[in-house]
C-alpha cells in the first residue's frame, strides 16, 4: 500500500512539473511590473529597485526558475511579495478550513445524494423519479452563490438556526462544526445533484446485472438486494464522480468562503489578487493542483476498498 502510494505520487511528477512551469511562466509574462503594482506609482526608484532585488526579480528568468524549483524541493513556496511571510505558512494557516469545508460538502453530498439517487432508480420513471431528476437538474444549474444566499436567508435570517457569518476560529470543536454546517451544506448541495444522478444511473446499471438476478433466485429480500448486493457495486462509479468533481468543489469552495466570510483558500486568493501578491498566488496554484493529485490518489485507494477486483500494485 505504502509502495503503491509512493509510486503513484512519483508518476504524477511530470504533470506536476509541467504545471509548475506553466504557473511560473504565466506569472513572469504577466503584463505590469509587480514592484510598481505593490509599491504604488509614487514609489521611489530606489524602493522599486530594492524590492526587485529582494524578490529576485532582477535575475534572469532561468535563474528565478531554478530558485523557484530549489525552493520547492526544500518545501518552500517563497515569501509573500506583500507581507514577507513564507507562502507555505499563510497557506497552511487557512488550508484546513478549506479542506474541512470540502469534506463537509462531500459528506452532505453523499448522505443526501446517494439515498435520493437510489430511490429515484427504484421508482424509475415514476413520479418521484421524475421529480428528483428535475430537482437534480435544477441543483446542477444553481450557481454556488445563489444556494448560499438562499440558505443564509432561510436558515440564518428567517429561522435563526445557523450563524450568518461562519467564524470557525472561535470556540471548541462543536463550535467549529456548528459553524461549518451551513457553508458545507451550501457547497454540498451542488455535490448532491451530481452524486444523485450518478447514484441513479449506477443503481440502474447494477440492478440489471446477472448477479442481482442470482441474489433474487436465492430468495434474498428486496432490502437486502439493494443495500447489500447492489449498493456496494453501485458505489464504484459514485466514488469516481466524487473524485472527478473534487476540482469543481474546490472552485466553488472559494465562492462559498467569500460569501460566508470564512477563512480559507478562497479569501486568501481574493486577498492576494487584490494585493497583486504574485508569489502567494503562485503558491496557491501549486497547492490546489497538488490537492487534485492527492484526491485522485485517494479516489484510487477508495476503489480498492470498495472493489476487490482492484489491486493496489
Amino acid at each position, binding site marked *: 500500500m505504502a509502495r503503491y502510494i509512493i509510486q503513484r505520487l512519483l508518476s504524477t511528477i*511530470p*504533470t*506536476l512539473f*509541467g*504545471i509548475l512551469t*506553466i*504557473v511560473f511562466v*504565466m*506569472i513572469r509574462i*504577466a*503584463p*505590469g511590473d509587480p514592484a510598481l503594482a505593490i509599491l504604488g506609482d509614487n514609489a521611489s526608484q530606489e524602493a522599486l529597485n530594492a524590492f526587485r532585488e529582494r524578490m529576485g526579480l532582477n535575475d534572469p528568468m532561468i535563474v528565478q526558475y531554478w530558485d523557484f524549483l530549489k525552493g520547492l524541493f526544500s518545501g518552500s513556496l517563497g515569501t509573500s511579495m506583500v507581507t514577507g511571510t513564507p507562502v507555505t505558512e499563510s497557506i497552511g494557516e487557512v488550508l484546513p478550513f478549506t479542506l474541512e469545508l470540502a469534506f463537509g460538502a462531500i459528506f452532505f453530498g453523499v448522505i443526501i445524494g446517494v439515498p435520493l439517487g437510489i430511490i429515484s432508480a427504484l421508482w*424509475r*420513471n415514476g413520479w418521484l423519479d421524475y421529480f428528483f431528476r*428535475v430537482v437534480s*437538474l*435544477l441543483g*446542477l*444549474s*444553481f*450557481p*454556488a*452563490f*445563489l444556494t448560499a*444566499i*438562499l440558505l*443564509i*436567508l432561510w436558515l440564518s*435570517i428567517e429561522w435563526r438556526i445557523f450563524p*450568518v457569518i461562519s467564524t470557525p476560529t472561535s470556540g471548541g470543536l462543536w463550535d467549529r462544526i456548528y459553524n461549518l454546517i451551513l457553508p458545507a451544506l451550501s457547497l454540498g448541495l451542488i455535490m448532491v445533484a451530481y452524486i444523485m444522478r450518478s447514484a441513479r*444511473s449506477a443503481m440502474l446499471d447494477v440492478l440489471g446485472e446477472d448477479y442481482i438476478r442470482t441474489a433474487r433466485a436465492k430468495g434474498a429480500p428486496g432490502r437486502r438486494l439493494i443495500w447489500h448486493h447492489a449498493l456496494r457495486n453501485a458505489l464504484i462509479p459514485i466514488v469516481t464522480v466524487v473524485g472527478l468533481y*473534487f*476540482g*469543481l*468543489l*474546490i*472552485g*466553488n469552495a*472559494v*465562492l462559498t468562503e*467569500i*460569501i460566508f466570510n470564512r477563512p480559507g483558500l478562497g479569501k486568501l*486568493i*481574493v486577498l492576494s*489578487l*487584490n494585493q497583486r501578491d*504574485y508569489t502567494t*498566488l503562485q503558491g*496557491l*496554484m501549486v497547492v*490546489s*493542483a497538488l*490537492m*487534485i*493529485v492527492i484526491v485522485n490518489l485517494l479516489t484510487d485507494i477508495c476503489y480498492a476498498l470498495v472493489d476487490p477486483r482492484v489491486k493496489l500494485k
Partner: protein
Amino acid sequence: MTTVDTTPPASETRSTAASLLRLARKNKLSTFGLVMFVLILLAAVFAPLIAPHDPLAQNIVDRLQDRSAEYPLGTDKFGRDTFSRILYGLRVSLLIGLTSTALAMVLGCALGIIAGYRGGWIDTVIMRCMDMLLAFPTLITGLFIVAVLGANFINIVLAITVTILPKFARVARAPTIALKEREFVEAARALGYSDTRIMSIHIAPNIMGEVVVLASLWAAYAIRIEAYLSFIGLGVAPPTPTLGTMIRDGFNNILDAPYVSIYPGFAVLLVVLSLNLVGDGLRDAIDPKLRD
C-alpha cells in the same frame, strides 16, 4: 472499374436529426429548455428595446426598492433598475459564455482530432498538456489567468476557453481513433487526400453529435464561470453591468434588501438551467446507453 465512395456516412447525421425530432416530442423538458434559452437570448439581444430604464441611470431617491410597477425587479443601492441591469448583464454573460464555448469547441476538437488521428508523440504531447490543464480546479484556472492577465473581455473569454478546452479535446479524440480505422477514411487516404482534408471533411462531421451535446452543457458551465469571476471581482470593467457583480454588490445589503442579489442570481440560474435542460435531452437522444 470500381468507384470508391469516400463520403462519410450521412446516416449518422440524419439519425441525429431524426432523434432530435423524436426528442422534441418525447422529451418535453428539453424542448422547454430550448424555448427558455431562446427567449432569454432574445431578451438579451433586444435589451435596449425591452429595458424600462437606463441600466446605468442612478436614482438615489429610489434606492434598494422591492418590486414595483416602476421597477419590475426593484432597484440596487444606487437606485438603478435591477431588471434593466439584468437584461444588459445577460448580454455580457451570453456573449462571453457562448464565445468562449465556441472557441473551446473549435480549438479543443481540432486538438483532439489531431491527437487521435496522428497518434504517436503528437498525441502524447497534446493529451499531456490537456491533463495538466485538467489538473487544476477549473474555476481556479480561470481565476488565475484573469488575475495575471487582467480582467477584460478578451482575457475572460481566453480564461474560460482554456478551462473547458481539454474536455472537448478528450471527447473528440476517442471517436477519432475509432473512425480513422473505418473504410471511408481509409478509402480517402488511399485516394491521396491530405490529412487536413480527411480530418476536417471526413472525421469532424462524424463526431459533431457528441460535441454539440457537450457544447450546450459546457456553455452552461462557461456562463457560470463568468458569473463567478465577476462575483469575485474579475469581471469586465464597470460600469457595464454583469450578473456576478450585481450579486456581489447586493450582498452588502443582504439583510435589508436580499432581492438585490437574488434576482440576478436567479437570472444566472435560468440561463444555466435552460442550457442544461437542452444538453441533457440531447445527450439522452444521442447516447443510447444513457437513455432510459
